[in-house]
């Protein structure tokens, strides 16, 4: 797993060609490495957009308004959850809890944490993603 994490850090995703290389290096079968790679939600199979917006969709954020703010993210970013916008500018992902449940709704934008999300915060994030 540390190898897969490192790959993702470097390339932004784990290239399909890397699986046999990792398997050889670790003395494992390709199927084993592929199994690990596909089990975990973190590992990306394709390159992500230039910006990555992860929005918390778990219960505490729902209670704090995420059921309203989540669709607003899709609209503002012009991108559906689980997808990368065709221009490659942004990837929007759902995430289950960032541990910011007392200041939700929350999100992580390119690794930066954002709490108390409102319309203004969404507009700011959309602007950030445009650059």
């Amino acid at each position: 797993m540390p190898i897969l994490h490192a790959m993702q850090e470097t390339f932004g995703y784990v290239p399909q060609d890397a699986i046999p290389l990792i398997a050889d290096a670790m003395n494992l079968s390709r199927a084993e490495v592929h199994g690990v790679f596909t089990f975990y939600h973190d590992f990306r199979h394709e390159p992500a957009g230039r910006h990555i917006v992860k929005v918390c969709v778990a219960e505490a954020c729902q209670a704090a308004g995420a059921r309203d703010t989540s669709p607003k993210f899709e609209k503002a970013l012009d991108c559906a959850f689980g997808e990368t916008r065709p221009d490659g500018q942004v990837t929007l992902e759902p995430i289950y809890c960032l541990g910011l449940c007392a200041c939700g709704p929350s999100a992580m934008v390119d690794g930066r944490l954002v709490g108390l999300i409102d319309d203004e915060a969404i507009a700011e994030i959309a602007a950030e993603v445009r650059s």
Partner: protein
Amino acid sequence: MSVVIYVPGDAAAVAVGADRVAKAITEGLARRGVEGRVVRNGSRGMIWLEPLVEVVTAAGRVGYGPVKPRDVEALLDGGLLDGAGHDLRLGDVEKIPFFAKQERFTFKRVGVTDPVSLDDYLAHGGYKGLERAIAMGPADTVEEVFNSGLRGRGGAGFPTGIKWRTVAACAPGKKYIVCNADEGDSGTFADRMIMEGDPFQLIEGMTIAGVAVGADMGYVYCRSEYPHAVIAMNKAIQAARKAGYLGRGVAGSQYDYDMEVRVGAGAYVCGEETSLLESLEGRRGLVRAKPPLPAHKGLFGKPTVINNVLSLAAVPFILSEGAKAYADVGFGRSRGTMPIQLAGNIKYGGLYEIAFGVTLGELVEEVGGGTFTGLPVRAVQVGGPLGAYFPRALFDTPFDYEAFAKKDGLIGHGGIVVFDDNVDMAKQARFAMEFCSVESCGKCTPCRIGSTRGVEVMDKIIAGVEREKNLAILEDLSHTMKLGSLCALGGFTPYPVMSALTHFPEDFGRGPMPLAAE
């Protein structure tokens, strides 16, 4: 004279602007030619006041909050450094009722000290517990933990002392301490706050565990959603190692113990202990059948203590203050304190550590102040995504493992998520099924297929299609999942689903619950 200003580096504070506040203060001080130091402490747990800035004055620490970056200049001009008056001035933050009413055993240093300073830790009573454990020896240390009545804070509430006894009784040889820092439950953040706000305490707790059961290596398995916690833990581990508190002969004793942090990869089920061990070994996080227990055959097949962050972080207090001091507070068979996390739609959200026995109603209404939207509280979910939804009618339930179980609920990791009366409980039930289907490890059919079917059935119920027939299917499905699942993901998902249906039938198109239903 050099001033000291605390600006929390806790992830929740950072999410509401603490980094920018810290930067503005540093720059403001430089511009004024004032010599000063900004310390990034943990959070005091009053999240609605974050970023909560504290200044050290001759009369003690004076708090201000919530401070926005644009407030900083006015604060500095208005005499922040002397603790002068201002709209945001809170005074002594320990006198704020939310804080003053707590019993902070595990969180006593969080928000007070510089989290990654070993000197600060030592100056605030750190490593007294390990010192006593070394003096007492392994056997008595295990008994001390047993006598404290400490139960696992990860969810199941299993007595920690019994777990340690089992591992201690295994033949000498390679053994491991594993700390479960996967904290996947929505509405919980206490583990994160410990790792970010007082990482040495967790290191000390794990070291004591190592000495007690004869393990010389430990791992913290931390979820990938917590990058700040990973950084703080790694810094603290390095500092402890450098000072001889980790490695060969910890703290000058004959016991060896060292540890590392490993990062997960976004799988809720990896919080389940056997799935976590699989993941630590580099495999898919498939749940293992028990027995064998991890205490007998755990990590790499060796005897392993696996405990939650809060369980291990409670240990230094138990050793330094004595088992009795811990066991003296509590309720029934739930001894000691619980770091409760108030979350969701709540006015005063945050971390509230208190002895067991406080009622759910007190926590939500009095401590938490009800909802931040100002609407009435309709439901609270206790214990994460596998925990039951409670209506107001059950607000007299005391916070206690057994009392919650009696009401078909669980306290889990101590998270309370508050919903106002806009909540649609049928949607919440659907979400519980959806979450289970997304996070299922796939080993058991009732969990994997049942939850997917559950989502479909809930969709029909919400759409009003053959309601009674589909509700009967839902009940049947829940029953099958409860009985036919290997772990609590499949086994407990029926709790939120069925509690929503039982207590809020009107949201499922059934008449309101008759009052005499008890």
